[in-house]
């Protein structure tokens, strides 16, 4: 469905992306993950035909984005970082305009416009001017705009930026619903978003792909490792006790009663920690293992294996 071969883009001297290679098959939801400035938006802009690559090939539905831009553009829905909405139009007029612009068969017009309004929960406000809408609603109009032509491929650049937590959850839910109907690429620097919505992930750092695979496989890369937060009632020197635990990697004392412990393997670490605390008489308040495996992989891959990395 989407095929990228040796894609490079230079901005003058600066290399925004270098030799990207990936394939996405029909129906996949792929998260393009990377820190700010990693080259996510650049990759998406090339895929949409907005921008020409310096070298390399990108194909969507078998069409080269550079050779047949019009054919490609008919088949994609794109949400840029800033939703491209005309402020002096109503939502309904705007969606009708985008539908016409995408050159879809006019007989589907009413159907597709209504569906995109429903999916983004904009039916009640469809006759309002876009300039009077809040940022969250504008973002939803942006998503509706990408959906309105019922494209085979959806390219969403940071779809949840600027939304409140409830709206973020709604957008993620929407993306999950769209799974299977469209092939979706979404970029983000928020890990939980990828975990919540995607089945594949491509991690980009400084313009290069550092990892790409199914989400479970990526998480498995770091399997076994674990971070445990420990909170005690009273402040007691517990470091020595923790130090003796078998697979301990790092002890971080945040306050006198709060520790973060990193382990390289799971074994019986939780039992042991609990025993040490109870034996010391400090009183156990909280003992919570964190399974942010993807996050750890991400940080390792993008920032190297620095021990003091904080999210």
């Amino acid at each position, binding site marked *: 469905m989407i095929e990228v071969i040796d894609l490079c883009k230079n901005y003058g001297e600066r290399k925004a992306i270098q030799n990207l290679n990936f394939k996405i098959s029909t129906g996949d939801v792929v998260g393009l993950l990377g820190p700010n400035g990693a080259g996510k938006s650049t990759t998406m*802009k090339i895929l*949409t*035909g*907005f*921008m*020409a690559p310096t070298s390399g090939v990108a194909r969507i539905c078998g069409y080269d984005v550079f050779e047949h*831009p*019009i*054919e490609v*553009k*008919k088949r*994609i829905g*794109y949400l*840029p970082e*800033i*939703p*491209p*909405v*005309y*402020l*002096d*139009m109503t939502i309904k*007029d705007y969606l009708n*305009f*985008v539908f*016409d*612009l*995408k*050159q879809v068969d006019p007989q589907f017009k009413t159907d597709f416009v209504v569906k995109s309004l429903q999916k983004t929960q904009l039916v009640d406000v469809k006759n309002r001017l876009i300039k009077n809408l809040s940022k969250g609603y504008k973002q939803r109009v942006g998503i509706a*705009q990408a959906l309105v032509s019922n494209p085979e491929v959806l390219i969403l650049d940071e779809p949840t930026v600027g939304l409140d937590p409830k709206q973020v959850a709604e957008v993620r839910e929407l993306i999950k619903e769209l799974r299977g109907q469209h092939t979706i690429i979404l970029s983000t620097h928020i890990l939980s978003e990828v975990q919540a919505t995607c089945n594949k992930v491509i991690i980009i750092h400084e313009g290069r792909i550092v990892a790409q695979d199914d989400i479970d496989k990526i998480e498995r890369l770091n399997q076994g490792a674990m971070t445990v937060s420990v909170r005690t009632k009273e402040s007691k020197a517990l470091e020595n006790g923790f130090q003796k635990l078998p697979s301990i990697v790092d002890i971080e004392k945040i306050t006198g009663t709060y520790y973060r412990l990193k382990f390289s393997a799971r074994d019986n670490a939780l039992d042991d920690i609990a025993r040490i605390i109870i034996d010391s008489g400090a009183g156990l308040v909280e003992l919570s293992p964190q399974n942010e495996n993807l996050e750890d992989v991400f940080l390792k891959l993008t920032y190297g294996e620095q021990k003091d990395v904080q999210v």
Partner: protein
Amino acid sequence: MKHIKPVVVVFKKELRALFLSPLFYFITFLATILMGITYAVSIWNFSQTLANTMLTMLGGSSQQQNIHYVVFVPHLSLLNLIYIFVVPALAMRLISEERKNRTFDLLLTSPINSTQIVISKYLSLVVVNFGLALVSLFYMLISLRMYQFELAPSLLALLGIFLCGCSYAAMNLFASSLTDSAMISFFVGIVLNISIWLIGGLTELIDQPIFKAVFDQVSLNAHLQPLIEGVVKLNGLVFFASVIFIFCFLTERVIESVRWRA
């Protein structure tokens, strides 16, 4: 047909945006007031001259007795002045503002190529110019009810000014494509509109016959003058068509270059 559809879609959107916003009505309102004042003054002057001539039977110069020169030429130079300032104000929205609001991204990722974008936006400006030309035509038609005269030369003069307006539209669309700032594109547009009038003046400064001939041919005034006098010359029409084509072409190049520069 396949290539026309996207042009029609964007063209319709531009017209809607224009005619649903108060800007166009405000501009035509101001234009009508200005034209009304100058028309009233010049038609009164004309009737005075006519009455005096009849009284003294002296004849005077023939131009002074011609409604075309006394009333319509000043009337049309006012229309030209309105074009010089109004067209950049309308053109700045078309590309500069779209780029600033990032709505241009939508056009660039939709199945429409840059030539089609330029044509649709240019045509919307031509329609506005045509609307303003119709407003000024109204004064001519009203005069017909008061006084018997030949309308055709005045219509040709109106066509000449309308073609000037269309040339400004092409130049100002180009100015609009150059920058994200609407203000800058507005001023660049006005400068371009005024300089196309001044460039003919360079003929006075140059002695070499070749350059003199070149500047003569690129002077807007030289090509407009025959139309004002009611004469259609092919080279004049070619001149206007060339200006429009060149600036539309440059605009298309600038839009296309965004893909490479951005």
